[in-house]
């Protein structure tokens, strides 16, 4: 049994680098998806990142209604 333990350790270490790459991929996709969700559904309605502009809101107007988001 005792001979097995170091082997397991080495295996764990060897995959530590792919794990961080994986976390980066997942975190990146999660962030960008939520950002896109916000811009398609919410921005320039209740809150607006570009001030008093409503180009995004008006352009995706029909989609916003149809996807269930609140719209004017």
């Amino acid at each position, binding site marked *: 049994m005792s001979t097995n333990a170091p082997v397991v350790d080495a295996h764990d270490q060897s995959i530590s680098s792919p794990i961080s790459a994986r976390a980066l991929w997942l975190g990146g996709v999660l962030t960008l998806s939520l950002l896109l969700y916000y811009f398609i559904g919410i921005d320039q309605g209740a809150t607006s990142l570009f001030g008093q502009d409503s180009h995004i809101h008006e352009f995706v107007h*029909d989609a916003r209604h*149809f*996807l269930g988001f609140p719209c004017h």
Partner: protein
Amino acid sequence: MESRFIYRALGVGALGGLLAFVFARIFAEPFIQNAIDYEAGRDAAQNELYKAAGLTVDGEEAEIFSRGLQRNLGIATGMVLFGLAMGGLFVVAYLVVSRRFPGIRPRVLAALLAAACFLGFYAVPFVKYPANPPAVGHSETIGDRSAVYLAMVGISVVALILAVVAGYRLAGRFGAWYGSLLAALGFVVVVSVAMALLPALGHFPLNESQYGKHATETPQPLLGPDGKIVYPGFPADVLFKFRLYSIIAQMIMWATIGLAFGALAERVTAKVKAPASAARPAAAATPSPAS
């Protein structure tokens, strides 16, 4: 390795959004136009009443994009990008779960996850705050409506994730069937309590003070000073069709994501799991009686 799944999920997400758009363009857009026409007619009738009462009438709002642009390129852009975003959230969940449970077959996991996303992001919030066509919804309450809608989506998604985790734990104690049922019951209870606590759209103070006590923001008949109806309430059939088609469009999108991604994930997973099998072309050439 993750990137292969991610690109495919984003692709099928955009495809799902595109198919949902085609459906929307054919079936929903006529009703969206009906709703906009209703709103225009109602505004005109309202302005007549204001004029008769000697009040000043606000000018028409300037149109930024024409209806032609909104009902074609606008809704297409919105739905494809929404599909892309949903594909992104979906694949994050897929990669997390598939790593934890490598024994679940990719296409089964993809189908189950897509169904869960449909429920959590759309169907459950819809029960409390259904999709509304143009003309339904007062512009002054958009802040309140956005807040309660996002709260409903958040609660529904988080409760669904917790229910799945709880169901997995409970299955160890009560068996798969009763463990799952208990978790489902817990989900229904949590979501029901949230729905009971969140306000109905019509009950925002802004609405009650201006429009009276109604559960929703659906326009009521417009009454003249003598109490007679000068313009009807919002047509019920338009509201129903719009909501029905909204549900169907989401089903199309999530079915596309779940099924198409499942098929692609099967192939990627097979390649990742058995890279050695490519070195044995004889095995692949042998027809299997099972297929």
